[in-house]
């Protein structure tokens, strides 16, 4: 498994995580592949859609229960949970960088290796003003990139610095 040498999840690990194309709601995508003591995602889920027996277990999602509320995306200390909605071509990613983009802004969409693979429009921003909370940015991307885009980078604005 290359994941433990590179930090990049192997393709086989991602199999089965993508939501079905016709799903009515967004679905959480848990890219957490290693046993270690951590359980906030399970604790914050309002519908018990995330299952763990012991705190060191790898969390498992029950898609039928997931309402797409994004609470786990915000809570995950490892920033390893995303949300995907094929119907509207939307991806939600955690974002702990400044500047925080605004709705309507075009940002660089990055894959799991940091390559810029698309220009994406920001459709929503959660927790933009809560200083200690993780901001979550929702972007629209081409359908084939829904399971590829995992971060965004705000393009530098001429007047944003200095």
């Amino acid at each position, binding site marked *: 498994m290359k*994941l*433990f*040498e*590179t*930090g*990049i*999840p192997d393709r086989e690990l991602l199999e089965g995580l993508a939501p079905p194309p016709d799903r009515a709601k967004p679905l959480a995508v848990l*890219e*957490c*592949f*290693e*046993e*270690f*003591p*951590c*359980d*906030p995602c*399970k*604790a*914050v889920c309002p519908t018990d859609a995330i299952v763990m027996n*012991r*705190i*060191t277990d790898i969390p498992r999602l029950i898609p039928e229960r997931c309402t797409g509320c994004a609470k786990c995306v915000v*809570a*995950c*200390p*490892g*920033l*390893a949970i995303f949300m995907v909605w094929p119907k509207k071509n939307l991806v939600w990613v955690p974002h*702990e*960088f*400044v500047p925080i983009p605004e709705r309507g802004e075009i940002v660089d969409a*990055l*894959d*799991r*290796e*940091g*390559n810029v693979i698309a220009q994406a429009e920001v459709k929503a921003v959660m927790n933009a003003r809560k200083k*200690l909370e*993780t901001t979550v940015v929702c972007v629209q991307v081409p359908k084939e990139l829904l399971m590829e885009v*995992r*971060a965004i*980078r705000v393009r530098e604005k001429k007047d944003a610095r200095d």
Partner: protein
Amino acid sequence: MSEKLDVQLAVVGGGPAGLAAALAASRFGLEVLLIDENKELGGQLIKQTHKFFGSHNHMASVRGIEIANRLKKEIRENSHITVFLDTTAVGYYENGELLLYRKSPEEKLVSCFPKAVIFATGARENMLAFPGNDLPGVYGAGAVQTLMNVYGVLPARKILMVGSGNIGLIVSYQLLQAGTEVAAIVEILPWIGGYIVHASKVRRYGVPILTRHTIIEARGKEWVEEAVIAKVGEDFNPIEGTEKVLEVDAVCLAVGLSPIVELVRQAGVYTPYIPELGGLVPWHDDDMRTNLPNVFVAGDLAGIEEATTAMLEGELAALSAAEYFGVKSEEIQKMRKDRKARLEELRASRFSDKVKNGLQKLAAKRPK
């Protein structure tokens, strides 16, 4: 000028272990003097801008800096705890004297004879030997965090990180957040040392993680201008011909920590060498008692681990100290059982195998 002071329980070190120890001890009526050499309590917590892992019921998903703020507030509001900041414990002698050097509000030496002491002095960073490691721009990860997160100073424009343990990964991420480019993270082992989610997080922003690689030289006239890295073989020696030169203006070392044992050794605490726990460590049982009846230890001093376990150990040390003073309470047994269960739970994954081995070795070295 020196002054004498009456102290029941001294807690040396105001990081996560010391803060938790002071608060727990005060719950059982002990009068605590909490000493820290910095101008602010919190130890490493105040630099930790990431959310903690662990159990949701016990401050997981809360950022280290916020945990520090909560504990500091509780300490401030606690009338049983006196805090000496900007104060270094410079000696602990066989006659029980703890000598304090206060730098403010007035520079002076203070002598006290605490009836018991909890040491939570933490750890210091390991250095790595390579040509050029004395150039300005070669930092320990702790210094990088202090500059960025305490003083708001950017330590570099482009940096090489050495070590992929959790500290190396987290500090790389913080550097990215601060606007520094991270050229690469090199790791001498064949696999990443820290939590993989931390690794994926920095990788996503384009930082290559190079396992089986190490730094062999830092070059520059007056400060770091480039770093030379190379692949290593099975014997961990660099392979000739694989050298690569990276243009960076800083190198950050995150290659492990060693417990700060000088004070406990002065007093006669037995400190065997246990590499799995970070080197020389004070012998202690699972209630954080040492071979001296009135000396207790907690946190990284008792074996390199992390802040959540440090806080639990601090509480366990406080419970043992309360018993030493004759406090009898069901609450002690209840708390002890709970904290030990939580420690066991946190140490259940493969990441704690090393620590658990180390603790077993330590237990076998119980002094007669």
